């Protein structure tokens, strides 16, 4: 019993003095989760050889159309690296502006023109990510959707990903729903 009391006192001390790490706060916002997904895509997708000109070139995350992330994405990834590369966000107001990027988030605002976009990107190594209901059906590669249990999950169109020549790690695939036409 004496030693139990000692253990207790010791642990009470530890518990009382550990700082609160705000980092593991409950996940609240939809776009925080989507930001984390985008970061994981940058970590777990391999682009074909020759995509990057040198080993320090950034992985560019493009946002096409209205930006639902606000400053969230920039703040989150500014200090981060993925596959040893820095990360950068670029915004394109409409489809005509789209420049060189590796991951392309296609906003809901562009849903009407997205199939046109997929045709235009057909021969590139860009990973298209979107959230409109028909995104994967029309040829997009990764679609966010809300599951019945109110969590955000992803659906992957493997044919489209294959066409883009990218390799998606099983880390992503094993938790994704595979789009079946």
């Amino acid at each position, binding site marked *: 019993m004496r030693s139990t009391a000692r253990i*207790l006192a010791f642990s009470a001390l530890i518990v009382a003095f550990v700082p609160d790490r705000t980092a593991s706060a409950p*996940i609240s916002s939809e776009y925080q989760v989507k930001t984390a997904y985008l970061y994981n895509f940058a970590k777990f997708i391999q682009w074909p050889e020759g995509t990057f000109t040198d080993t320090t070139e950034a992985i560019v995350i493009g946002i096409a159309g209205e930006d639902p992330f606000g400053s969230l994405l920039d703040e989150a990834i500014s200090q981060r690296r993925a596959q040893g590369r820095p990360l950068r966000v670029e915004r394109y107001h409409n489809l005509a502006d789209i420049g060189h990027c590796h991951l392309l988030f296609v906003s809901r605002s562009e849903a009407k023109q997205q199939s046109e976009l997929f045709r235009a990107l057909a021969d590139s190594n860009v990973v298209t990510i979107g959230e409109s209901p028909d995104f994967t059906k029309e040829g997009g590669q990764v679609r966010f959707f809300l599951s019945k249990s109110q969590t955000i999950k992803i659906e992957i169109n493997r044919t489209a990903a294959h066409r883009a020549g990218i390799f998606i790690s099983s880390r992503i695939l094993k938790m994704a729903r595979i789009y079946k036409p």
Partner: protein
Amino acid sequence: MHKTRRLIAFVSLFMLGLYISGATADVNGLLDLSLEDLAQTPVSLVSRKAEAPFGLPAAVSVITAKELYHSSTFNLAEALRLVPGFHVGRIDANKWAVSARGFNGRYANKVLGLIDGRSIYTTATAAGVFWEMQDILLADLDRVEVIRGPGASLWGANAVNGVVNLVSKEAIATQGGHLRLGIGTEDQLLQGRYGGRINEQTYYRAYGHFGRRDDLKSKSDIAANDSWDSWKMGTRLDWRPAVRDHITLIADLQQGDMAQTALLFSPEAPYSDFDQHRIQFSSISTSWRWQREVSDRSDFSLFSYYENLERRGPPAGELSDIWNSEFQHRISLGNRHELLWGLQYRLTAIERMNQTFTASFSPRTRQLSLFGGFAQDDISLVTNRLRLILGAKLEHNEFTGLEFQPNARLAWTPTARHALWAATSRAVRSSSSGENDVRLLLGVLPPVEGALPVFLGLVGNPDFRAETMHAFEAGYRYRYGGLLSLDVATFANDYTDLFAVEGTPLMRFDDHVLRAVTPQNQISGRSYGVEISGNYKWSNSWSLNTAYAFFHLKLKSPEASSGLHGDQEKNTPRHIFTLALQGLNILGTDLNATLRRVGPVLVNTTNIPAYSELDLYVNRLVADQTSISLSLQNMLHSSHAEYSTRLLTVPLMQAQRAFTLTLVREF
């Protein structure tokens, strides 16, 4: 006096629990969450690759991290009570009997155990898993995958009636700090873990655990003496240098000190006496694994581990060094075939220590090599509907030579709601070095008129062969969305060459006479049974699980030697029923309850009656990252017996009603 102290302790815990600081959402922490946490999707790894159990042609259950963490127990062995068809009997505070589909006992030897791929099944003295030596931080476990029935075509010998595969979380899934403090009438524990990030590719965690368990209650006039302490510390590092590569390093260190009362023998009067002594164990284990995804149709892994294991104390001790290396490769061929194959080599060096008159081994050291290879073809006969798995493992072990363990499994999934499966397999339990080398005393006839005392004992048989099983299984699964599921598994197992003992001629020594029995492959038998489990899940919060298992075993001895099989027919209950309520939230308090009814068992010559027990676990989040819980075990009776031992004679002990208050703080 000590009650007051306990009260003060409880109150101070509550005060601590109220210590909060406001937490704001920060996306940086989110980035370090694993993808699994992001999607909150429990992913299952069975058949050596990730897969959900629904369409699998085997009796598979998965205990999720959440279920584990909300179970009322602090001991890994008892967490296995959550698995339908598993029988867990507490022998004393530091010993459990754990098995599925029969043949239970302190040395239950037909269920294989693995922690992150490292085998915890020992064959050094007796064969089986020493569950008390598998102390693990339940919070760091990702899931426990359990196969009932043979898994020998992949896992090799001794995976006869089940495989328990404990899978720990990747380091990225355990970032930040975690402290758990538990104080109770039977269990005290202190656990801590910290997970951090070295760079974008590398995450780690380090943990420590200390546990103390009080004596159980003795019903005989021999005082209870089975309390124990154990501590464990370890670390895991996950490094993903590139998208396709994953390297894992794990190292663990543990030590335990257990009290035991056991019948020990001596050649002088009084020849036998219950002796109170202590048993110490320690282990160091380290493993590394390299997994590479060659393409989305092919991957391989290399895995090695080293373990040093020491267990000292009456009646005998052992020191083992184990080196194990494995290679595994998966490749999809065409649209229909997925081929999985692998190779394995294991070297085990055993040294027997602290030999006593009661137990000794000859030879004193052993070096055992194990070679194995397996191949499995997972064939999609009709896409998403009909699936055939053909596989076999060929293995060579030092005692029983080459063992071939094939299986064939078929699953039919006519719709997304129904699945039917059937399987047939051959599996063996290779003989242990104990059965070959042991000299263990079990009883004594005191001398009459100056004659020598006659000891009764078990003497190893170097010709003891493997026990063999042919299994026939069939099952059905039903699911209605994520709401309702039903799982029925049936089996009929034919055993041959089962362990039985046969008398040997009297052996005369200077100061005693030994009348020994020796292991023989004498008996055959047939078991059959059914395991039914149902799960009803209400939205994302509470669920109701119920399970029932029926088991029957009939053994056949050669005519001249009937009754050789001892208690084997009855050492596993014929009926086990459990009903569990999980995660019911009432006014912010999580309530979990488990009711179980376990049928009577016969262990050696001890009849242990059926019992019913109720465990409760109440958990409340008192602050953002702090929760307090109360575990109430064995609420229906002040004490009850669950199991006893056969080979090592320890007094019958009873598990007690227990209360434990735990505080968990994440930071």
